[in-house]
């Protein structure tokens, strides 16, 4: 596979390490009521869609950036890739 790194262009997926669903960026509030249930959901449950999936890849043998890649799990077609930190900071603003 080839991953369109937003800074570096198309890179071979072998340079990356895969983590999983980008929902892992939304760590629950540990101080909230029912935090344990929220964490169980966060740590263990997945949408696991057959189709478009937003997922985390780490450019471990590259620039060490974490990317959110949008990919179709039925065709492996990649629809886009963004820097995870930009997304997270953007969402926070």
């Amino acid at each position: 596979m080839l991953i369109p790194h937003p800074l570096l262009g198309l890179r071979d997926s072998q340079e990356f390490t895969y983590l999983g669903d980008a929902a892992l960026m939304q760590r629950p509030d540990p101080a909230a009521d029912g935090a344990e249930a929220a964490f169980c959901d966060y740590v263990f449950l997945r949408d696991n869609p057959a189709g478009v999936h937003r997922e985390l890849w780490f450019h471990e043998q590259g620039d060490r950036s974490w990317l959110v890649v949008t990919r179709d799990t039925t065709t492996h077609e990649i629809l886009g890739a963004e820097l995870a930190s930009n997304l997270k900071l953007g969402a926070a603003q």
Partner: protein
Amino acid sequence: MTRLAGGLIDRSLPLNFTFDGKAYTGFQGDTLASALLANGVQLMGRSFKYHRPRGVVAAGSEEPNALVELRSGARQEPNTRATVAELFDGLAARSQNHIGPLDRDFLAVNDLLSPFFAAGFYYKTFMWPKAFWEKLYEPAIRKAAGLGSLSMLPDPDAYDKGFLHCDLLVVGGGAAGLAAALTAGRAGAEVILADEDFALGGRLLAESDLLDETEASVWIATVRAELDSLPNVRIMTRTTVFGVYDHGIYGAVERVADHLPTPGDKVRQTLWRITAKRAVLAAGATERHIPFADNDRPGVMLAGAMRAYANRWAVSPVKREADAIAIFTNGDDGHRTAMDLIAKGAKVLGVIDVRQTAPRFGDYEVFAGATVTGTKGRLGLNAIEITRNGRSEWHPVGALGVAGGWNPNVHLASHHRGRPVWNADLLSFVPGADGPKGLIPAGAAVGKGGTEEALADGMNAAITALAGIGIVAAGIALPKAANAAAEQVAFWHVPGKKRAWVDFQNDVTVKDIALAHKENMRPVEHLKRWTTLGMATDQGKTSNISALAVMAELTGKSIPETGTTIFRPPYTGVSLSVLGGGDTGTTFRPRRLTPTHHWAEAQGAEFVEVGQWMRAQYFPQAGETHWRQTVDREVLAVRSGVGLCDVTTLGKVDVQGRDAGEFLNRLYANMMGTLKVGMVRYGLMLREDGHAYDDGTCARMAQDHYVVTTTTANAGLVYRQMEFFHQCVWPELDVQLISTTDAWAQIAVAGPNARELLSRVVDDFDLSNEAFPFMACAELTICQGLRARLFRISFSGELAYEIAVPARYGQALIERLMQKGADLGVTPYGTEALGVLRIEKGHAAGSELNGQTTAQMLGLGRMVSPKKDSIGAVMSRREGLAADRRRLVGLKPLDAGTQIMAGSHLFTAGAAQTMETDQGWVTSSCYSPHLQSYIALGFLEAGDARMGEVLVAANPLEGQEMKVEVVSPHFVDPEGGRLRD
């Protein structure tokens, strides 16, 4: 000899070769198959199940029958298709899968027993008596099964792997492929043209069709010359594109030296990963046969293959020149073979055409509305039975060509699981619209097999493909060509009572398909699996569609309703050597060496693998005859003097920024933000699921600068996790991370004399306990100005330091310390002594921090700070973790001289030993020279409350059982006084 005139062989270059030990001669340009046929050899092998005599069927990589063991010794190569093995001088091949000589195969007895070996028979028997399967039936089946054999020696040849990139990959160098490559080449696109054959031209080489009114080889040579002259075009012959992977990556094997006696200084094969923006699939088509009674004898072959042998290799497929050749066809294509053979001077009996109104294109007999209903000849065809209007008569022939129509080579187009679609006009499957993105099939691969239409389609495919990536390609002047007559009717097999083969290699007949139908193995995949149809080395290239047609007839459905088959990579078999390419010995995986590796080597150290690292395990000295002697000496030297150990392999991460303390607070279970500058704290990291993950130290070098360490095993993983939390979860924190594991050489200096030794290398630095107490850290210089970091931390439990210098000074540092400490008894120690020292102190390592344990189990429960959140804190409170009562304990054998084997399970003395009564297990064990006893660590149910209890450590795996006493895991200096002195 049955050579004809003409052909594309070089008669000035005769080549000697042997088959089954007998010597023959062929010519440059021959394949093993064409050369054998030219020598009148029809019998080339035996079938898989019935061991029927088999000859060559095809002229290309789809060959199911003519499989040989090529070469000898360590280069022996089983199951090699004679049809694609290029002849070279000295080639030696043997037939395979028979016992006794090929022409008198003892296992041919299977053929007599064939009624017992119907499809799926083995699922119905061999069940009694139960034990006989492994002992009797299966070994017999395994011995009879298989095809060729391996030499069992390592492959002596070299292999390579590489990457290529292009705008357009053209797969196949026939009419369509050449037109595509030329169109794209002239447009300036980066083009790769790959063909599995050693010559370009594809089917043009096999046909007598003229281009621009002259032999096709002239046009091919002109095109090749132009492509060769274009710097943007790379021609790769002997290269099979075997698979289409994601995002335009194609796998290809280039057979660099398979046509040579030995590769010499070349690699034998190269694996290419070709990244292509677009591709044209011009892979041509494969002819299918028509099953009829006894259609598997040597001498019965595909009519198109016969044409190829006659036109390209100037070979007649008969044993003797006087033998006649017949053609059996369901369309016009078979007639072409008759015409070409006659033009070459071969003797043709006629064309048996299933059509009542069969055409006649030349001077030969046409048996219209007729079929072939039988054959004779034990080891080679000598007669066929022709049946017309219910009347049968036998005709002597030496060979029969069968033309059942052409199947487009859709394989690559279905590698992404897209389904081929049925084309009723062409009577074949063609690539569907859901093929791999960017791959455009063209020419015979989409059923446009006429020369004129293939040329045009190839050109147009290239124009379309390039337009998709913004390259405008103009049409090119194509040579004048014609499309041969190609009328045909749907005729799939000749009904009859005798066996009619569909899959030659695996001996699957029409009857087997009928039986599968009867037994409700009707979905095409069930049919294949029940009968083994299409599972042979040819992957059903010549048999799948015929089988579908037979099944369709039985079910009364159409062929597409009955099913389609899709193809997966590889297109043809790929040698494991080229996929595994090269680094199979000691270079199979990278080997990381510590900065003191070469020094340790010079000291005679033994090394041990720790992940990718090689670490010194122990340093034997003269006179030491057992590793234990060495390790005991090293351990005692640390406890009584001073020892040195390279600990560079521990992961190191530099953490800087205003929020570094807060960041580490969130990462580690315990507090890091409150750490004073100049101090170190032991840190425990949990996974988000609450289990213990890793441990190490955090040293605060400055207000906004920490240096943290990880275990060797988790160095990469922990760094990855830190970057994840930094970038994906808390990017608002002002913190920067970098792994510095390889940047710093780090050496542990441990033992009562450690301070004295260090004082001899530091530059004006106060090492006193007051100025630099336990858990202090500092940046300093040593040896007159070398930048260094010093940490007063101890894994051994002794007064100890770890000193870090830039990696390139690691060896110099250990040499200097050895020199300066000679009078202090300085002793290098390896991982074994390190292990003993830490077990004596009850420190957890990989066996205890194995990802399945909790902070509480490790006795570190209180480190999980309730005052703050950190990774895993919430989840560590779950019932199952909180209620886990297993604890890390020390274990001492009642007999001090008996080793407690790590991996033993613990049981209450006298209890039955079951999964239910299991009380725990031994994680680490060693001999403690300090205590003069074997000792161990382990996890035990309620272990902290069972001090003094005597348990059984059971190791039934090795027939051992022993009594052990539960003790504190801190065997040495439990108060920790030594490390604080």
